[in-house]
């Protein structure tokens, strides 16, 4: 099954995000197809949240995005559309779930009303009663039966329940693209699984595209089919999850995997780490972003490395490849 | 969307970083008034409150910098002397309120619940007697004077200090280091003096500044009503009262003391706001 079989829903190309003269994201390029679940991993400061915000048009004041963001069926570059056009898209065709469920909901509005609001916003002619009914349906789908929770206020619900309300809001208008930014990070481990389940079944039922942002490799392995690895505002590696995780090419990816791998530790062994720390925004080295922390870096890395596809002659080289001139697995010499 | 990684409070932080516009402007105004008051102790342009052999109602001129009033006294002298009264009332009123209110607030935070409840109820009842009302009641019995005004305003301000120190003390008491101190066996008095009080200084100073502004307003109103500083003694509020009957012919006699009052209040308000921002950004009302 190649990317050409199913329609591409989101196409991002040459995305640059900058705050004034400080570059935050550089030449980000990827696609997400309908029904596909793509993970975006990286540490804090890698730029993954910014990518999501740029795609949604929710960048904070003073931060600008350039490049192309296209949604299937719409010829116009989203980054060039008006505020009104953005508002029409958000909540309807492209929706987002954020990290902090505890503060994401309006504390003085009932939960069902908050879901109904997004329905009434985007579906003309739906009466208030009808919107509430549909809202309760969606809440039911995400595991919050109307009888108990629809008329509740956010403070009466637990973190996991609140996050499911946010998911309900995101799914209410049957979006074609759902972006999740660390949706389960703030929740207890036991609740995480439930929430992830709701997300996956929600996008499956709607054949929606999913862009799932997280720093947790285990979650990506669970939820996603393809993964993009981000560092320093750039995508450094991409590919199918099982390929990238078993046979990483970029040293950063290898480092991440090694640091998460507890099973191969012997007695008294030290958990491997990546040397150094993530530089602050705007202070990444020229050339390869990772070269100051890479064990294999040399003079050749002072030039930005080109993107190498894993398999040449594939339809979309950006879907699977890496940006490294000395990938792991290469013979020395 | 949260937390910067550098600390925003605490010792060692460059004090220059904490300066802000309200603090500077307010501080300047307060210094100006204090300077005036101190100056009046050693020098005034003309003899204090003396009736001069010069026409009344003069507009500002070379000899009488702000003109003369209906009793043929120099206005500028009166303004400078008035600042003394203003500060005097403010200091005593706020001092009384803090001296009683702060221990009361700490007590209410640390004492057993029934006692604390009692103190807070009493506080609420005292709050139903605003400064002006209390001062009027006092004046009815003891006659109007600066001293009566000071005491009345002070008593009426106690609940503000009590309330703010109580809530500040409660949050300090629930902090980890106090818990550690109690676990180590420290008695309540020691905890109160060594942990709670020092952490309340910021709060108290800010409240003092704000209450000072309120005290100035109250004193001016009382003097205007004739229930505060009597006519013979310098007071901006009283000057306003005297000027009201000659608004047509000499409006400056009302505008000048009025501006003085407004600037003094503005100064202390801004100072309070600026201190609040500087001392703990988390308290800042932005």
């Amino acid at each position: 099954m190649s990317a050409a079989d199913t329609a591409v829903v989101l196409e991002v190309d040459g995305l640059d995000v900058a705050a004034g003269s400080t570059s935050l994201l550089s030449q980000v390029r990827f696609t997400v197809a309908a029904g596909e679940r793509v993970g975006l991993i990286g540490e804090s400061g890698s730029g993954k949240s910014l990518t999501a915000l740029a795609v949604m048009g929710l960048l904070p004041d003073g931060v600008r995005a350039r490049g192309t963001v296209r949604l299937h069926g719409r010829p116009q570059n989203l980054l060039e559309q008006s505020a009104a056009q953005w508002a029409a898209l958000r909540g309807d065709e492209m929706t987002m779930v954020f990290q902090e469920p505890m503060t994401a909901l309006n504390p003085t509005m009932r939960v069902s009303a908050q879901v109904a609001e997004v329905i009434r916003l985007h579906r003309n002619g739906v009466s208030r009663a009808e919107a509430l009914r549909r809202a309760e349906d969606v809440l039911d789908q995400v595991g919050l039966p109307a009888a108990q929770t629809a008329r509740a206020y956010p403070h009466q619900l637990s973190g996991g329940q609140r996050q499911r309300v946010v998911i309900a809001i995101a799914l209410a208008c049957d979006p074609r693209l759902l972006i999740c930014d660390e949706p389960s990070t703030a929740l207890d481990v036991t609740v995480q699984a439930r929430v992830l389940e709701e997300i996956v079944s929600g996008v499956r039922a709607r054949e929606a595209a999913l862009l799932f942002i997280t720093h947790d490799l285990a979650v990506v392995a669970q939820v996603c089919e393809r993964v993009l690895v981000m560092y320093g505002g750039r995508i450094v590696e991409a590919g199918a999850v099982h390929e990238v995780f078993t046979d990483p090419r970029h040293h950063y990816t290898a480092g991440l995997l090694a640091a998460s791998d507890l099973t191969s530790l012997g007695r008294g062994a030290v958990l491997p780490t990546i040397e150094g720390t993530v530089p602050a925004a705007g202070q990444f080295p020229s050339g390869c972003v990772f070269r100051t922390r890479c064990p294999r870096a040399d003079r050749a890395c002072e030039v930005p490395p080109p993107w190498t596809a894993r398999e040449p002659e594939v339809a979309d080289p950006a879907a699977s490849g890496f940006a490294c001139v000395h990938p792991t697995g290469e013979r020395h010499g | 969307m949260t937390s910067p990684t550098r600390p925003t409070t605490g010792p060692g932080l460059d004090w220059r970083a904490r300066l802000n516009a309200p603090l500077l402007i307010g501080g300047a105004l307060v210094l100006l008034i204090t300077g005036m008051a101190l100056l009046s102790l050693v020098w005034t342009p003309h003899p204090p409150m003396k009736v001069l052999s010069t026409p009344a109602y003069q507009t500002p001129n070379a000899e009488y910098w702000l003109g003369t009033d209906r009793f043929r006294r120099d206005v500028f002298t009166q303004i400078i002397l008035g600042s003394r009264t203003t500060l005097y009332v403010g200091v005593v009123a706020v001092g009384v309120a803090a001296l009683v209110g702060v221990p009361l607030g700490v007590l209410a935070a640390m004492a057993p619940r029934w006692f604390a409840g009692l103190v807070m109820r009493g506080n609420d009842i005292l709050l139903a007697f605003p400064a002006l009302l209390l001062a009027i009641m006092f004046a009815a019995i003891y006659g109007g004077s600066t001293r009566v005004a000071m005491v009345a305003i002070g008593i009426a301000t106690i609940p503000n200090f009590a309330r703010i120190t109580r809530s500040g003390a409660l949050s300090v008491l629930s902090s980890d280091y106090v818990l550690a101190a109690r676990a180590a066996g420290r008695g309540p008095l020691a905890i109160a003096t060594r942990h709670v009080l020092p952490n309340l200084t910021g709060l108290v100073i800010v409240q003092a500044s704000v209450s000072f502004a309120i005290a100035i307003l109250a004193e001016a109103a009382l003097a205007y009503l004739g229930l505060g500083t009597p006519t013979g003694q310098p007071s901006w509020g009283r000057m306003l009262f005297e000027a009201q009957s000659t608004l047509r012919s000499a409006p400056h006699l009302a505008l000048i003391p009025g501006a003085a009052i407004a600037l003094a209040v503005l100064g202390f308000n801004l100072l309070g706001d600026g201190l609040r921002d500087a001392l703990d950004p988390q308290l800042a009302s932005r």
Partner: protein
Amino acid sequence: MLWQLTRRLAVLGASIAVSTVVVFGFMQVLPGNPARVALGVNASEQAVARMTAEYGLDRPLVVQYLDWVAGMLRLDPGVEYISRAAIGPQIIDGLGVTVWLVGAAMLLAVTVAVPVGAWMAIRHRHADGVALSALSQVGVAVPAFLAGIVGISVFAVRLGWLPSGGWVVPAQDPVGFLQRLILPAIALALVQGSVLARYVRSAVLEELQQDYLRTARAKGLRPAQAVLRHTLRNAAVPVVTVAGLQLAGLLIGAVVIERVFVLPGLGSLLLDSVQSRELLTIQSVVMVLVVAVLVINFVVDALYVLIDPRLRTGGRR
């Protein structure tokens, strides 16, 4: 919720009761014999004794206290010691004027302060927001009576548009009534309105930083829509509280304003009786004002619980 309400009502009742004792004790006990105070230092012993007997001032204090409270509840606390004028009707007449003044000022303050405060918050990073904020600081610093005097100076003396004081019953002369109400109401509203505007600004600013606003935008709400539908509604909660408290402040401020504009309200009644040393009148008027403040605070508390659902069901804010 009913239980909370009943409990607060009980507290209100107790507070009022304690206040009556405080006021009574202050006015009747502290100065010594009220008759002596009323008659002055030079009064003869006979005159004092006669007045004492006439007004029952030698009865046990508790009896006098209960008598007075009963009288207050009947709106008839008695007559003034010297002038023998009935106090009840004077209080009611005074209330008629003061209520108009305070009501008008409150209306002005709220209708101007709320939108201005919200605007200051929304535009807090722009020049107009900063300018308005500075202006409100000045508004807070100007005493109401100063504003009143300046108002008189400009609009009555200089321009002659409005009278400089006095009062007309609205039924008799509605235009004249309004003319005499405008300046004092504005003067009174200026300070409290500025305080309220600053409070609205900080409440709205706080809500603008909340995460749910981001969720609202992600839903597809335009910034203006999001602010109106979500932010302002939530900011209303603390604002209502403060607005209510402002009412109490307005009531006290009215006392001074009535003097500036020579309005025959409760404040003037109070001040006049201080001058003529009519302790019973002072006592009764103060009581009315204190009860008003306590009731206002109670209503504001109750409203707060009603508006914020987190307090209704016992959630934490």
